[in-house]
């Protein structure tokens, strides 16, 4: 089975578990390293970013930090670290329900025959900095609320204002209310109108360019920070690379490092979501490998790229 087929299978299974799992008793807790949105009615797990901003992270007051709340925060942080260490960015490529939603939009666009939006790699690299700004916002926002610098209605500042998954994913649970404008006060008006503007713009961009939001995803940056303890990695054997650039073209994140790297074997960069498209498409046998603890899980080959049955010593 190609990684692409396996990925589609896992993505859809994960979508069902993370969006509807709660209705069948699945409770994975708030340490899930992907956009398993807690705003979805009956979800099976919760995105770690929400907990991190709120009740298990930077939303805890200084007074609670050394008590039960602090221990709980530490526990879920460790759960998050272990999950990332085990699967790395497979969470993004194979599990994230919002990633799948973006993939559906891309499939729809291609089915309709639209070519999509081309954004220069340099521009995307510059835009990628936004993910660190958002990460800083979701860390500093709750602290500022605790310190009284920000109004309480900014609670969960990333989710409320900038996360497009918050209004979109609950639709799959039958809820549309997150698309409503809350005019209770000036702050709620600012917060909800920002959210709607971001969601609208992102939706259009996600239709025009594959995985557009992932470029800005603060969770992607967080997972990448844990790269030194992550067991899953994308490796390249530069001596075997033909330089054809197929990896670059099939990459919906527009990662160039995998193609251009000529010396290092480590090509796991921040924007790579380990979807495996490059490994599937590369016709240079053994040039690219998806590894777990150094052992290859999947290896590029001419036979794999052409969808042929694997042969011993396949060319």
């Amino acid at each position, binding site marked *: 089975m190609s990684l692409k087929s396996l990925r589609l299978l896992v993505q859809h299974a994960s979508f069902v578990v993370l969006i509807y799992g709660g209705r069948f008793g699945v409770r994975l807790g708030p340490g899930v390293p992907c956009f398993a949105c807690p705003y979805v009615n009956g979800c099976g797990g919760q995105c770690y970013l929400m907990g991190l901003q709120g009740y298990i992270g930077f939303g805890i007051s200084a007074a609670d930090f050394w008590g039960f709340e602090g221990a709980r925060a530490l526990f879920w942080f460790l759960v998050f670290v272990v999950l990332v260490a085990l699967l790395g960015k497979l969470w993004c490529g194979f599990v994230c329900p919002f990633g799948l939603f973006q993939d559906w939009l891309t499939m729809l666009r*291609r089915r309709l*025959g*639209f*070519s*999509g939006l081309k954004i*220069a*790699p340099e521009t995307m690299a510059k835009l990628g900095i936004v993910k660190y700004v958002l990460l800083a916002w979701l860390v500093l926002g709750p602290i500022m609320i605790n310190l009284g610098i920000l109004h309480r209605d900014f609670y969960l500042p990333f989710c409320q204002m900038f996360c497009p998954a918050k209004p979109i994913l609950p639709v799959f649970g039958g809820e549309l209310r997150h698309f409503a404008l809350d005019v209770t006060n000036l702050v709620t008006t600012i917060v909800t109108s920002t959210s709607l503007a971001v969601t609208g713009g992102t939706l259009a961009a996600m239709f025009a360019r594959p995985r557009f939001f992932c470029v800005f995803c603060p969770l992607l940056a967080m997972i990448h920070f844990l790269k030194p303890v992550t067991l899953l990695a994308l490796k390249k054997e530069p*001596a*075997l*690379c*033909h*330089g*054809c*650039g*197929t990896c670059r*073209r*099939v990459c*919906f994140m527009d990662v160039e490092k995998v*193609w*251009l790297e*000529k010396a290092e074997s480590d090509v796991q960069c921040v924007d790579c979501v380990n979807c495996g498209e490059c490994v599937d*498409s590369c*016709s*240079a*046998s*053994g*040039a690219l490998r998806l590894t777990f603890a150094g052992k290859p899980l999947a290896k590029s080959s*001419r*036979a794999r*790229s*052409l*969808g*042929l049955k694997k*042969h011993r*010593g*396949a*060319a």
Partner: protein
Amino acid sequence: MSEDTRHSRLLARARDKRTGEWEAELADIRAARGDFPGLDYFLSLHAEGPSPEKIEERTGMPPVALLCLQAPIEIFLAQGFFPVKILGGSHGCANLTSPKLPALMCPTLKAVLGETELDPRLPRIPWVLPLTCDWMVKFKETRALFGDFPGPVHLLEVPRLRESAETGDRWVREVSKLSGFLAKIGGKKLNAKNLSKAMGTMEEARKAQAELAVLRRKGLVPARVHALIQGAFFFDRAENWTRSVNLVIGAVRKKAGNGDAPNETGRENPVFLSGSPVFFPNFKILKLLETAKLNVLADDLCSSERLFPRHVAVTDRTVEGMTRALADAYHRGCLCPVFAENAHRASVIKEAQNEAGVRGVVFHLLKGCHPYDLDSFSLEEALRGWGLKFLKIETDYSAEDGQNLLTRLEAFRPTLNVEKRTAK
């Protein structure tokens, strides 16, 4: 004797020589490999020769002469043309044009020019000339030395840099211009349906080529047989070629399964053949390798395993998306030495070392092929680092140096096993 009479005599002599070369090579392959399963189809295609009329009759598509392989075959097929690579392997043809050309010019192009002299129909069909090496850049003007070139000629500019977005975009525009040229002369435009169909056809050809390569790595396909199969691609519809290659694959597997290997020397003295292309009927280097009992298990010749890109990955089925996919595969994936920053040149050799256990590289250099000559030095250095032996053979189409080359190849053979013996 008038100039015209002298020229007519020269042409007649060259035609006889060329016919003799084709017949002699085919007879030799028949005698040596006649029992190879499924070879008759490929022999018969070569026997009929590359006449434009016959190709049009066989394929049902008007032929377009193509030199160099950067022009995507799929574009031609989608727009109702059949790309014919003019085989520049005849010594007689090369000799015919030699007096008007530099002594150290690529013999392949000399031979192609000779073919256009011998067959007056050839210059009248459309030509696509990818501007790769300097000889190709000057081809159109050089051809003018021998008379009219009335057929429409499209010059396809090939950017020498492959790793920048700008040259990538420029190349996509060049490929689109090629499509525009074909639409102008044929009236059929490129659309998602015809391009997708052509890409499907070529994907099947690629699969057959890959399966054949697997058997070759196992030592089951002799060098000349492999070259004959690959060369026949431009004589018949891709579907027919693919079907015939698949028949060969099935028959060879069956034979090998019964313990009856179709190549008697198999995997002994495994080598990789690199360098300048080898075109029918000039299989001199391949025959010498066979005689020296060096088994070619893989190659990176643009006349053979690099005949078309290994894979064209399509993510976007729009015309633009597919054109870009093709453009990338035929440009960035091309290991021709005319490109700058060609560090990936050795990758296929490393791959063959891992997969097939090749122990050495025979570098076939046609005199006058300067890009390959230049590349051979850096390649040799890279290969020595991987423990591979390297032998550069510089030759032309004449038979005079055959014995000398054979002696060198035979002397090269024992060096392949030096480390093995020392280890024992």
